[in-house]
């Protein structure tokens, strides 16, 4: 993935998430969703650094990770619309999609729930000696779950090839890290397991990409796991309908100055990789991709309730 492709992908994820928020307001999709606006550099930087054989798990805030990994936006959108053509045929919704064919093992909507699951995918890689690295995304909130400790201890003990990527986006729902973390530096916890812990600017595409590449190599060499903290900011609310009463608009305005897409665009323009005209064209293409996804989803058939009984067991 070159930097222009990364920029396009970050724009598409942003526009996809903005479309989701709009579609909720318009009553065209139901249920709930958690958007990753402001965190696109983590998803795309990671995806740009890993190999096709690698695996990824995500969180409840997972559209960006999935799209960065190569999901078809049409089928992600169709899942949000509850259609048969969605990744989980309308059974999963925003938080429950999986596509092992592209090494994407999803999430389950429980905070921290994917941490041991990802580690199991890594255990399989070790048992079969496939050279696969599994990237396990989770948030600052999940880092306080007991399963984080249980799993990091076990993964470190067995030297499993798993890269634990914690997206520290400043808030666990409404709770700021200052009120949720006794030590706000999550990477520090790595020392408790005798593994490497690194903190990186999660809004810097290049920093994320290079850091993931470096530490994925460590995992691949059998010297993992590694705990990588990407410090970012959730520009969107927690979920649909979050009035964001727990933080000020001034704080948000300052955070928008650090928008990862803006930062990448500025840098690419400064080094001559991107022009204003090209950027505009790329954004238009990304918007067209999202619009196509919505059209595809809305024109897709509803799933058949009669199929549910057949699906209970494999």
């Amino acid at each position: 993935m070159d930097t222009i492709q990364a920029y396009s992908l970050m724009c598409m994820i942003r526009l996809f998430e903005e479309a989701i928020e709009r579609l909720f307001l318009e009553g065209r999709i139901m249920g709930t969703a958690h958007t990753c606006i402001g965190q696109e550099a983590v998803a795309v930087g990671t995806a740009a650094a890993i190999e096709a054989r690698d695996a990824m798990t995500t969180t409840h805030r997972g559209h960006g990770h999935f799209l960065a990994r190569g999901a078809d936006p049409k089928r992600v959108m169709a899942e949000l619309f509850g259609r048969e053509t969605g990744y989980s045929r309308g059974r999963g919704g925003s938080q429950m999609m999986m596509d092992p064919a592209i090494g994407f093992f999803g999430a389950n909507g429980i905070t921290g729930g994917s941490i041991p699951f990802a580690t199991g995918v890594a255990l399989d890689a070790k048992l079969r000696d496939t050279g696969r690295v599994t990237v396990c995304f989770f948030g600052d909130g999940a880092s306080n779950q007991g399963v984080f400790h249980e799993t990091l201890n076990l993964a470190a003990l067995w030297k499993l090839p798993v890269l634990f990527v914690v997206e520290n986006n400043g808030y666990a729902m409404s709770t700021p890290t200052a009120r949720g973390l006794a030590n706000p530096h999550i990477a520090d916890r790595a020392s408790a397991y005798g593994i490497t812990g690194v903190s990186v600017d999660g809004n810097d595409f290049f920093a994320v990409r290079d850091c993931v590449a470096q530490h994925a190599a460590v995992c691949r060499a059998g010297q993992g796991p590694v705990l990588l903290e990407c410090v970012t900011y959730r520009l969107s609310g927690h979920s649909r309908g979050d009035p964001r009463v727990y933080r000020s608009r001034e704080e948000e305005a300052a955070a928008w100055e650090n928008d990862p897409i803006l930062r990448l665009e500025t840098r690419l323009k400064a080094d001559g990789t991107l022009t204003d005209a090209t950027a505009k064209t790329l954004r238009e293409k990304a918007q067209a991709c999202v619009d196509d996804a919505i059209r595809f989803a809305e024109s897709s058939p509803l799933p058949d309730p009669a199929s549910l009984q057949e699906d209970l067991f494999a």
Partner: protein
Amino acid sequence: MRSVTFTQLIRETLAAELRRDPSVFLMGEDIGVYGGSFGVTRGLIDEFGPERIRDTPISEQALTGVAIGAAVAGQRPVIEIMFMDFITLAVDQLVNMAAKLHPIYGRPCPLVIRTPPGGGRGYGATHSQSLERLFAGVPGIKIAAPSNATDASALLQTAIRDNNSVLFLEHKLLYPQRFDVEDDLPTPLPFGFARVAREGEDLTIVAWSHQAFVAERAAAQLATEGIDAEVIDLRTLCPLDIDTLAESARRTGRVMILEEGPKTGGFAAEIAAQIMEHAHEYLEKPVRRIAGADFPIPSAKNLEAACLPAYDDILALAREWMG
């Protein structure tokens, strides 16, 4: 024929499955050199090594979640939860991940969770519970609860080869029991077929796991008194063989259900309701439950006995009905 303990046949079955399929591996606390808290996996590490007889830290949630991830990635893990009480620490992974994999994501999850429920050993309130009720109401998990060595072996083979998560109950009072079994391991037994352990015309006793073992003994005693009891051993709670239950209920008109766990909110209540739905017009007597007390299982021998279903209550109810 030969005589073996329940433990021995489970161990032989695990070994056979490990030899048959390289994607099968065992994982749990102290299952390696120590051989498991009840000795079921004793010696297996010598043949299969520590990679496939994998000791874990005391981390039930992590080991269960790791097994689920490995299963979806293509392995066939068989995990041991040392006492069924400890499964509470892994409920999130089982309920929110394992049970959802096929119905929601359309992905197979070939996982077996072996665990011993049950009291009778004085282990106290957190090492004696029968918690299958927690999972019976969670669609997406199969539950097997054998009452004898041959069924346990046959059902365990099926569980390991199944592409879904199977909760496999090995009641701790069955482990040391000896059973006459064939020289070779039995062939796998499909889930959802109850065993008519004893045919009878007067009344039906429904049970699973160790209580089915108890029921057979009670029926033999009742036979000496001229009461012809049918005993139905469920073998699997999910899927439930309601056809065999309903047929028996229609024929005898009298059904008692044995359950080791507390009476309130138990699986016996579910069976009673299903029998009412399928056979109420044939019933001579209301369906009755003989179950554990609604009290945590105490440690002292006499107090524990007071909280577990009583053998004498089975006989008394049968005599009351047929007297």
